[in-house]
């Protein structure tokens, strides 16, 4: 079997983070989260666990909604979505995310598309997975320039959801909502605690010696490279082709 690719590692990490969910929603143009969700669904089926439902925004095959683009948010408000993914042009050490821009609002120097549904979904989806492949000081900042969605909320503010984990190209973090701090839980092969510290603009907790991200076992890898890759090809043909080519190389 060919060695584990970095992107496969991310997909497996996501599948692990989704353990136990019944319904996961994935934003448009998010092939890695979608693949992670598909792998979780395949694992659940193999284990005879309750079915995992996947809603991929903008997909036809994975669009179970019939009430327009409001339905995702309604569904989340009803507690029918267990997990969702958010990224961010900036993410800070308190898990605040910025999807709007850099500099003084509103005339920001750099302007990103905007907050989309983050200012709502981050509050009401129990397991929000922060996912950003690029791990650099320009992404992971001390303090975001604009809060599209805050990592935590004061007591008394209705909040049934929030950050569950942060996954990057270098490692994986958990988030402590009480202490409002990330904790490095594992370092992907090829990176070190020191390289992660250097690439991160905020302080985070970690064990004295950081654990390495474990390799997926052969059964999981086989599922991913077989069934999941096939399913992925329907929604993200280019991404699936790229991954297959990398595996063949």
């Amino acid at each position, binding site marked *: 079997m060919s060695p584990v690719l970095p992107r496969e590692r991310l997909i497996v990490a996501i599948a692990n983070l989704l353990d136990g969910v019944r319904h996961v929603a994935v934003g448009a143009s998010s092939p890695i989260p979608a693949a992670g969700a598909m792998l979780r669904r395949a694992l659940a089926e193999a284990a005879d666990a309750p079915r995992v439902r996947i809603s991929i925004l903008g997909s036809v095959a994975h669009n179970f909604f019939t009430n327009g*683009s409001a339905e995702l948010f309604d569904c989340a408000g009803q507690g029918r979505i267990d997990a969702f993914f958010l990224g961010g042009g900036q993410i800070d050490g308190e898990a605040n995310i910025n999807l709007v821009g850099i500099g003084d609002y509103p005339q920001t120097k750099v302007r990103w598309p905007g*907050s989309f549904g983050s200012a709502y979904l981050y509050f*009401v989806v129990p397991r929000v997975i922060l996912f950003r492949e690029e791990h650099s000081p320009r992404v992971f900042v001390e303090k975001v320039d604009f809060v599209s969605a805050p990592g935590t909320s004061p007591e008394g503010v209705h909040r049934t959801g929030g950050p569950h984990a942060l996954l990057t190209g270098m490692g994986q973090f958990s988030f402590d909502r009480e202490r409002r701090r990330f904790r490095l839980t594992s370092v992907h092969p090829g990176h070190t605690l020191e390289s992660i510290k250097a690439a991160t603009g905020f302080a985070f907790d970690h064990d004295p010696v950081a654990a390495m991200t474990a390799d997926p076992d052969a059964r999981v890898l086989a599922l991913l490279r077989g069934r999941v890759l096939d399913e992925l090809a329907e929604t993200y043909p280019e991404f699936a082709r790229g991954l297959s080519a990398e595996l063949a190389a």
Partner: protein
Amino acid sequence: MSTVLTLDAMARRVKPGMKLALPVDYAGVSMAMTRPLIAHGAGRLHVVCLPTGGMQPDMLIGAGLVETIETSAMTLGEAGGAPCFARAIAAGSIRIVDSTCPAVHAGFLAAQKGVPFATLRGLIGTDILAHRPDWKVIDNPFSETPDPIVAIPAIRPDVAIFHAPVADRDGNVWIGRRRELASLAYASEQTLVTVERIVDESLLSDERTAAGVIPALYVEAVAVAREGAKPLGLWGEYGPDMMEVARYAREARSEAGFRAFLDGADHALEAAR
């Protein structure tokens, strides 16, 4: 009975200073109306996107017709950021009213229901809320402990414009499961719809099609525009032409490039006539 108009006549329904509502890129954008709107030139528009905006509002911004853009995002999807929007933000030549998708939906829903506002969870502690003096944080009257919740005022556009596959002679429009188009129509004073085709039989006469119909009651006028969403897609009819959207994304990066793209659009239009 809605009126059947030409695209140019339809564009003339839009007056300077109006609040104009537009749908998200994948829901049925009347791209066919973009050029006539720019030619007509009604400016100072307050454009509100349900819930995000793409190529059409970006072009209206590029043409200088937009004073305010109210949206939860502006994007060309895989083709990248909205170039005229980015330029206008950097120049400070446009007022941006940042929102979040369900807040835009809530504003339209309040208008649909005839109530002054709807409430929405989330938002508290965001800079979106900090920059929305038109939103209010109220206390949930049903909670025994303090429970702040954001109240979003009704969004009542003067005019909504979108594209759908089919209308009938009465002016009923089939939108399928793209229910955000119904929200646009319910909330707006006038709704202008371009369609691929007009059919003779009433879309309400068969319960199967009726389920996906906006009744003529909400439709001010209809115009036929074959492939009227292109280069964006129309569900069940054709996919987006991502090459063309990418070309726009590239060329419109400069003011001059945007103008040249518009001229090109003119020429393509001439050629097609």
